[in-house]
């Protein structure tokens, strides 16, 4: 269970970014790979805890789950994996060890509050 320390890193990272840009954060968007070793639900509840007593209190964590994509040397193409229990090309069955996507654990965007100008 390392999700709490990861959630704290996410909050810290977002806080720094918010301070640097002088904005208030509503939501943090995260890419989470199926091979990141992180459990989404655990991370979500830890995020809430990690936000306590920080400017991010009440903000949301929006998780985009990234499936595993491998590179098939036979097809010379990227293919989504059918199951992480079987690293084979779903088209031709070649064993594939080159992982293109699926290890992501990355903050990709911040949703911020901004005041839009009044329509004239």
């Amino acid at each position, binding site marked *: 269970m390392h999700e709490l320390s990861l959630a704290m890193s996410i909050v810290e990272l977002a806080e720094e970014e918010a301070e640097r840009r002088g*904005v208030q954060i509503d939501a943090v968007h995260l890419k989470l790979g199926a091979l990141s070793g992180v459990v989404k639900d655990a991370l979500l509840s830890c995020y809430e805890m990690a936000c306590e007593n920080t400017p991010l209190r009440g903000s949301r964590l929006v998780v985009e789950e990234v499936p595993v994509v491998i590179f098939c040397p036979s097809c010379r193409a990227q293919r989504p994996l059918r199951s992480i229990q079987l690293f084979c090309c779903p088209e031709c069955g070649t064993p594939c060890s080159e992982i293109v996507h699926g290890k992501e654990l990355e*903050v990709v965007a911040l949703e911020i*509050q*901004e005041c839009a100008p009044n329509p004239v």
Partner: protein
Amino acid sequence: MRPEPRLIEVRKNVLKQNDVVARSLRDRFRAAGVFVVSLVSSPGSGKTAFLEKTLTLLRPNYRVAALVGDLATENDAQRLARSEAPVKQITTGTLCHLEAAMVQSALEGWDLNQLDFLFIENVGNLVCPSSYDLGEDLRLVLISVTEGEDKPLKYPTIFNSGDVAVVTKIDLAAAVEFSWDTAYNNIQAVRPGMPVLKLSAKTGEGVEEYLRFLAARLIELRQAAAV
């Protein structure tokens, strides 16, 4: 004035802090010419017995040392001290994995130039350690025959973070009806091409092949550094 949500793009790796420390460790290891091996497995798969054997057998010919992660006790370091190699315990408290910064602080005061091999035993856990780079050259994923052949299918992530799988306690294989073929195929299913070693730290079976493998990797490392 109506507040409008706006999305600003950022691209920040959550593990950046750890990765930065791991990279600087790797640079230090490279500069010192020390080959660093980390061990991950579930609790009770025989990491410490395996490491004790490794240290004892390597010590006559190589300068070896070890860092061992454990939640609460110092038992492992005491056991490993029998090998007479320098051993330091990293007590993680309730933390379920080692991070690069822990390795960094444990190494304070150590002269890496005086080492050929450094071993890092992670906390027994097949989940959390997979996310953390420790700056090692080689990550061994251990599974013992008593755990069953399906471990790779249950924990594909850790196998994908590792370089070599080591099946331990093979002296017990017959007693637990362990199927080598099934285990091997499962490892290959989640990580095609992963080298697999099998051994028994107790009887010594398979240990020689493993030591030869390590020695070859050290030579490779030094040759690459010399180029």
